[in-house]
């Protein structure tokens, strides 16, 4: 048969709607995305959330202020103290309560350790997503979790539990740092800093990782601002905004640290921002331990009846920089012992809105890279 007799038939198969269901190894929790595909290219993406909506904002109207901090730790479950930290700061702003310096520094110390632990989970699961659970990605996952276990051991020796540490209280910190734990903290910071180059080599140093993240999921500045993305996602698009600098809280106005910024806006930029943030957090942790002030850690009188604490009427919005971005609590109080209305401004909710804009035009393989680079936590999205 000669070449001129070959007939080429082109067929259009139309769009395929593929459900990336709430149970999926790569959706970082119970996120559902309906992908409309034309061949391998995503034409439209419709995310669906709410599979972990636990009504925490309504629950907050029924619990006393001092009871509430542990409840919020279950929202963003990769950095639990960030939630209770923001709540405690908002309640302190409302009640004009000043926590003592040592208590504030200990809160910042735990917050930074949890930032490092959260970024290690992000990196490990990114490895699982991009490398495959039964393939090379598991190597990165195992190494990241090995480092994270050391951090959880430190948390356990300081607070008694691994990650829902319950260290933040309205008026200070619950657990004090003794000399031995402080020394362990500094030694661990050195250990993790020594382990970072191998983690970076396993991820960003490999050509496949670079190919899958470079130029993928670019968020232009206008889209980033209009949607309101926050955290490393925002800083990966070149916008310099970090709550620790914009509205400093606890120890951050006294500690020198840098804010990593990248201009490219793609998944690789967000990856590099988070890796740099781990290094910065290790530096902050060292400085906190070196400069920890002496004194009490809790400034209010011992709580005889925790349910009786009343905060004056008014409104307060205070945010912290969680590993995902700006986590803000807006508390409206009517002068009673329970919040009248409590609204959580969740960074993962804001970041996830960018998904219908980023996924179309890319391949199915880019979906996991983009979701991994956004680092959503569904407890934070759905509350």
């Amino acid at each position, binding site marked *: 048969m000669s070449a001129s007799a070959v007939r080429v038939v082109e067929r259009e198969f139309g769009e395929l709607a593929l459900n990336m269901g709430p149970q999926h190894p790569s959706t970082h929790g*119970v996120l559902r995305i309906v992908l409309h595909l034309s061949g391998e290219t995503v034409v439209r993406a419709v995310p669906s959330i709410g*599979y972990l*909506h*636990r009504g925490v904002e309504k629950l907050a109207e029924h619990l006393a202020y001092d009871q509430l901090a542990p409840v919020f730790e279950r929202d963003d479950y990769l950095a639990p103290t960030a939630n209770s930290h923001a709540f405690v700061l908002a309640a302190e702003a409302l009640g004009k309560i000043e926590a003592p310096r040592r208590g504030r520094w200990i809160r910042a110390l735990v917050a930074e350790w949890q930032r490092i632990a959260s970024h290690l989970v992000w990196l490990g699961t990114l490895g699982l997503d991009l490398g495959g*659970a039964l393939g090379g990605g598991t190597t990165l996952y195992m*190494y990241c979790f090995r480092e994270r276990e050391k951090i959880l051991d430190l948390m356990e020796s300081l607070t008694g539990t691994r990650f829902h540490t319950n260290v933040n209280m309205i008026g200070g910190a619950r657990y004090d740092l003794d000399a031995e734990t402080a020394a362990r903290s500094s030694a661990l910071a050195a250990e993790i800093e020594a382990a970072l180059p191998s983690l970076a080599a396993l991820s960003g140093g490999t050509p496949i990782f670079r190919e899958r993240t470079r130029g993928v999921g670019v968020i232009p500045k206008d889209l980033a601002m209009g949607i309101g993305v926050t955290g490393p996602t925002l800083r990966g698009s070149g916008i310099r905004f970090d709550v620790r600098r914009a509205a400093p809280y606890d120890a951050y106005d006294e500690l020198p640290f840098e804010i990593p910024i990248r201009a490219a806006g793609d998944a690789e930029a967000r990856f590099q921002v988070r890796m740099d943030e781990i290094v910065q957090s290790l530096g902050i942790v060292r400085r906190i331990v070196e400069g920890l002030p002496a004194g009490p850690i809790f400034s209010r009188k011992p709580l005889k009846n925790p349910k009786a604490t009343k905060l004056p009427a008014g409104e307060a919005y205070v945010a912290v920089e969680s590993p995902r971005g700006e986590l803000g609590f807006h508390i409206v109080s009517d002068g009673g012992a329970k919040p009248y209305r409590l609204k959580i401004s969740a960074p993962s909710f804001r970041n996830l809105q960018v998904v219908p804009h980023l996924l179309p035009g890319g391949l199915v393989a880019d979906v996991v890279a983009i979701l991994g680079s956004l680092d959503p936590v569904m407890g934070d999205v759905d509350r």
Partner: protein
Amino acid sequence: MAEDLPVVGQPRPPAGTALEEIAEEVVRFPGGGVALLRADALFHWAQKSSLWPLTFGLACCAIEMMATFAGRFDLDRFGVILRPTPRQADVMIIAGTVTIKMAPRIRTLYDQMAHPKWVISMGSCANSGDHYRNVYSVVPGVDHVIPVDVYVAGCPPTPEALMEGIFALQRQIMEGDRARA
């Protein structure tokens, strides 16, 4: 080998991993051997030694489950390998709060698993709804949706507790109704 006392807090894998412990009679001769055992002992031994869970984490307990599967607590040495699809999974570990939006999907996933299948309810939210049990959008416990074999308590349960739960399931599979909890 001398009988080692378990380290406090370290769960002890159940007895019944060696052939001599589950077979009625074992004869070894040069070049091979013969073991005489009841069929269900053989099948249960195989099932409990290769429990493949579904990767299904809902909330914070999923992170502790991930830590249990990672290097330090390593469940792979007990034959536990995660499978992403319910069609290839034996056990479903419900790790996290069950909401009304998620409950029908959990039921679908459970129905998609092939027999024999088991369910481990991990954490207080899956056991009873924890402090969310009165909330409008939460199902107070996954046993309202699917039958549960083992309940692991904790918020979140430590990896050792989850391992003990998996060992309890292994005892249940091996010994049936006469298993001690």
